[in-house]
C-alpha cells in the first residue's frame, strides 16, 4: 500500500502529463506483477462491484470522529467529495505496530484480503474491517482506501495515460497494450505479464488509422470553387469512430484513441459480416426508424457501465459511415474520396442485412449550387445534424487536421439572454467556488428557471462572480444560494424541446455561457415566449 500511495501522491502532485506518465512507468517497472496488475486496474478506471454505500461510511466516520451530521454536511460542501471529507474528519492515525504492518502490506493483499471480501460480509463485519483500516492508515492512504472501496478512484489519469506508461515501461507499442487491456483483461499477475509481453503477434491487427479532421469553414462558399467539386454530407453529432475488422476480430476505436468495442455490441455483431481487412470511419449515432435520436439518448447509454437489454432496445446505435480506409487489407487512404465512397457503398450493400442496416452510408446532400448548400446547412437541425460537411471529391484521407480539402460548417447555436438566480459550489477542482449556475427568463412579472450552465467563463470571471455571489445572497438552501437577480448572461445552446419534467416546460441541450452581459439590465432579458417560439420554429 505504501508504494501505491506514493505513486498516487506523485501523480497527484504534478499537473504535468509527462511526469504523471513517468511516475506510473516507474511503478510498473518496479512493482511486483500482482500489485502492478491491481494498480493498472484501478488507475484505468476499474471499479470492484459496489461494496459499501458511501453513506454508510459517512455514518461510521461521524461516529468515530464525533462530528454531528449537520457539521459533516457543512464539511462535505466545503470539500466537494465524500470520500475525502471522511478521510479529513477522522482523527489522525496513532502510530502502532498494526499501522506499520498495514503500510507494508502489498497492494494486492489489501485488495484481495481487505477490499474484495467486503461484499460477502455482514454490516457489522464490514464496519469492523473499515474502522480497523482507518485506524491503521495515514491520511493519503486512508483517502485512497475510501476511494477504492467506494469505487470512485480517480487521479486525473485516463486509461490512455496508463497505456502510455505501460508502453514506456515495457517497450510494447501503445496500440497493442490498449487492445490487450480492452475486453476481458483480468488483474492477475499473469494478466499483467501478458499486458507487457514483448511478443507482439497481436500488434498490427487492431491498429486504427489516424483520424482525418475538418477545419471550420472560414470563407464565403464561392471561394471554395465550383459546387460540383465538393461532396456535401450532414455533420452528425455522435461519437466519431473507426470499426476495424481483421483476423476474424472486431475493434472499435473512438477518436480519442480509446478502444470502445465492448460498448457497442450491435456494431460488433454486424461487423462479423464485414470481410477481413476492413476499416470503416464514421459516426456512432443513436438511431431508430431511419432517423437520428437526440444526442442526450446516446449520453444516457454512454453513462452506463453495464448495458442491459432495456437500454439497448431504447437506444440502438448505428455507424453512419463516412469513409472506407481499408479493404481486403489494402490501405485506400490515397484514393480520391469519390472512389473510396463508391467502394464503400458497394461493400455495405453486400454486407448489410435487411431490414435494419447497422452500417449506414452517410447520406450525400445534393448541392447543385452554393445557394442549395446554404439552404441545407440552415435546415440541418431538422435532421438532428449540427451542420454541413464539405469534402473535395478528389481528396485523399489525410492525417490530423489539415486545411483545404475538408470543411465543417456548423449551424449557429441558439442564444438567449437570461439572469442568474441560483449558484452553488462546484466539485473537485472547482470545490469552494460557486461555479454551477441556474438561469431564468422572464414570465410576466416572474422569473422561471430554465437552464443550468457550468462552463463558458474564464477563471478570473468565475472568481469575480463568486465574490459577488457571496455578497448578494438572498437565501441559502444548503449549498445552494439564491442570489439577487442582477447578473445577465447570454446563454448558447444546441437544441431546445418541450419538457413536462421542467418547471419552465422547456429543456435545452448543452447550454453554456456565451458572454457575461454586464452591459444589459435584467429588464431586457428574454421571456418564456421567446423560448416557446424557438421550440415552435424547431418542430
Amino acid at each position: 500500500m505504501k508504494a501505491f500511495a506514493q505513486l498516487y501522491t506523485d501523480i497527484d502532485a504534478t499537473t504535468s502529463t509527462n511526469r504523471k506518465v513517468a511516475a506510473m512507468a516507474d511503478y510498473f517497472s518496479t512493482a511486483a506483477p500482482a500489485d502492478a496488475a491491481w494498480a493498472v486496474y484501478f488507475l484505468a478506471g476499474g471499479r470492484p462491484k459496489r461494496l459499501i454505500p458511501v453513506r454508510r461510511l459517512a455514518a461510521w466516520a461521524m461516529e468515530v470522529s464525533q462530528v454531528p451530521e449537520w457539521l459533516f454536511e457543512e464539511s462535505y460542501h466545503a470539500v466537494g467529495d465524500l470520500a475525502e471529507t471522511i478521510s479529513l474528519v477522522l482523527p489522525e492515525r496513532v502510530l502502532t505496530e498494526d499501522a506499520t504492518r498495514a503500510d507494508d502490506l502489498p497492494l494486492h493483499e489489501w485488495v484481495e484480503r481487505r477490499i474484495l471480501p467486503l461484499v460477502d460480509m455482514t454490516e457489522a463485519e464490514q464496519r469492523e474491517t473499515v474502522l480497523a483500516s482507518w485506524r491503521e492508515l495515514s491520511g493519503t492512504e486512508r483517502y485512497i482506501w475510501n476511494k477504492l472501496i467506494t469505487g470512485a478512484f480517480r487521479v486525473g489519469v485516463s486509461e490512455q495515460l496508463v497505456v502510455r506508461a505501460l508502453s514506456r515501461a515495457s517497450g510494447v507499442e501503445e496500440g497493442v497494450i490498449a487492445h490487450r487491456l480492452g475486453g476481458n483483461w483480468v488483474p492477475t499477475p499473469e494478466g499483467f505479464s501478458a499486458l507487457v509481453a514483448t511478443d507482439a503477434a497481436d500488434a498490427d491487427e487492431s491498429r486504427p488509422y489516424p483520424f482525418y479532421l475538418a477545419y471550420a469553414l472560414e470563407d464565403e462558399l464561392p471561394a471554395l470553387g465550383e459546387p460540383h467539386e465538393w461532396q456535401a454530407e450532414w455533420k452528425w453529432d455522435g461519437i466519431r469512430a473507426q470499426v476495424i475488422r481483421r483476423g476474424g476480430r472486431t475493434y472499435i476505436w473512438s477518436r480519442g484513441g480509446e478502444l470502445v468495442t465492448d460498448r457497442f455490441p450491435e456494431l460488433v455483431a454486424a461487423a462479423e459480416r464485414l470481410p477481413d481487412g476492413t476499416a470503416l470511419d464514421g459516426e456512432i449515432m443513436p438511431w431508430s426508424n431511419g432517423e437520428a435520436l437526440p444526442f442526450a439518448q446516446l449520453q444516457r447509454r454512454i453513462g452506463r457501465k453495464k448495458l442491459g437489454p432495456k437500454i439497448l432496445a431504447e437506444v440502438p446505435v448505428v455507424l453512419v459511415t463516412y469513409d472506407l480506409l481499408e479493404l481486403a487489407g489494402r490501405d485506400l487512404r490515397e484514393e480520391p474520396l469519390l472512389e473510396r465512397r463508391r467502394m464503400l457503398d458497394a461493400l455495405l450493400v453486400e454486407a448489410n442485412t435487411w431490414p435494419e442496416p447497422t452500417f449506414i452510408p452517410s447520406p450525400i446532400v445534393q448541392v447543385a449550387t452554393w445557394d442549395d448548400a446554404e439552404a441545407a446547412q440552415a435546415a440541418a437541425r431538422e435532421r438532428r445534424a449540427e451542420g454541413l460537411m464539405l469534402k473535395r471529391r478528389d481528396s485523399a484521407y489525410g492525417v490530423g487536421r489539415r486545411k483545404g480539402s475538408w470543411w465543417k460548417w456548423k449551424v449557429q447555436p441558439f442564444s438567449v439572454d437570461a439572469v442568474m438566480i441560483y449558484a452553488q459550489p462546484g466539485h473537485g477542482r472547482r470545490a469552494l467556488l460557486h461555479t454551477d449556475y441556474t438561469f431564468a427568463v422572464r414570465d410576466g412579472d416572474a422569473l422561471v428557471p430554465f437552464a443550468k450552465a457550468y462552463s463558458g467563463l474564464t477563471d478570473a470571471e468565475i472568481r469575480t462572480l463568486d465574490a459577488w455571489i457571496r455578497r448578494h445572497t438572498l437565501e441559502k438552501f444548503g449549498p445552494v444560494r439564491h442570489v439577487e437577480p442582477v447578473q445577465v448572461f447570454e446563454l448558447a445552446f444546441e437544441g431546445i424541446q418541450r419538457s413536462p419534467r421542467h418547471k419552465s416546460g422547456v429543456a435545452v441541450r448543452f447550454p453554456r455561457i456565451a458572454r457575461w452581459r454586464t452591459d444589459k439590465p435584467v429588464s431586457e432579458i428574454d421571456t418564456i415566449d421567446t423560448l416557446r417560439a424557438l421550440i415552435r420554429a424547431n418542430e
Partner: protein
Amino acid sequence: MLTTTPSGLYCPAADLYIDPWSPVARAVITHAHGDHARWGTRHYLAAREGERVLRTRLGTEASIELVDYGAPVRINDVTVTLIPAGHILGSAQVRLEHRGEVWVVSGDYKTEPDPTCTSFEVARCHTFVTESTFGLPIYTWRPQAEIFHELRDWWRDNAAEGRASVVYGYALGKAQRILAGVLGADIGPIYTHGAVERLTQDYRDSGVTLPPTTAVATMPKGTRFAGSLVVAPPSAAGSTWLRRFGDHSTAFASGWMRVRGARRRRALDRGFVLSDHVDWPSLMNTIDATGAECVWVTHGYREPVARYLEERGLRTRTIASQWEGEGEGEVDDDVGAVAGEETTS
C-alpha cells in the same frame, strides 16, 4: 462592552474601535494584515513587536502608540491589554476589562509555536470574540515539523533535477515563517519577490533570525535559478514574472491546501498545509481554555462554529466581517493590502 458598528467592533466605554474598516479617531490594531490595519485612522494603538511591519504598512506619518504585551493601558475606565496572538510578528489579542467584566478579541491567531513571533497565550475572559477562518473539522494541521520536512524534500528533489522551487505564501507572515522553516537547509540560494523581501527585512530588523535572501529583481537578466527556492506572494502565480525561473515546480503554503480540490484548481504541483490560523481542534480547545460563557464568532465559518458551540451550551453571536472570508478566501489574510505592491517587481 463591545458593539458592532458600520466601521466594525467598537467599545463605547473607551471610545475605541478594534481593526476598524474605515477611518476613525482611535483604534487598536490586532496585526498588520490589510484587512485588519487600514489607513486613515487618527490614532492607532498596537503591539510594540509589530512596529516595523506596521510602519511599512501604515506609513511613517501614522500616529501609532506602541505598547508591550501584557502592559495595561487605561482608557477612560477601561483597561486595555495586548496579549500575544501567535499569528504573525506583532499580532495581538485585545483584552478589555471594565468594571470587573473581561472581554478578549482574538484577532487572527494560531496556537502552534512560531519562531517568527511571540507565541499565543490564552486569556481567561467572560466573552471571547474569535476568528473562524478554518472553523470546520476537516481542517486539522499536522505538526509543522513534518510539513517543513516535506517542503525541504520537495526543494531538494527539484534542485537535484535542475528545477527551481517556487513557493507561494502571503508576503507578510507566511513568507517569513517559510524562511525560518528552511533555515540551515543548505540546498541552494533563496530568492524573494519584492513584496516579500521588504517585509523580510522588517522581520530581521525586529530581531527575527532568517536565512539570507536576495530579491529576484536585483539579479541581472539571464540569471539561472535552477536549484534555488523562490518565495513569492500568491498573486505571482500564473504571472509572466515566473518566466525567468525556467523549469520550476510550484507550491502554495496555506491551510486551504488541506483540501485536494483547492490545490488542483490552482494547478499547483504541491500544497503544503501550513497555516497561521488555528485549526478546528485548537479553536475548540482555545475557546474552552478561555472559560468564556459567551462567544462571538467572526471571519470565516461563523455559522457552523456558532452552532457547534451552542450545542455545547455556550451563548454565541455571529458578527460579520467586512471580508466575506467564508469558503476559500481570495480575500484571506493580507491579500487586500498588498495586491498593488505584490505585482510591482
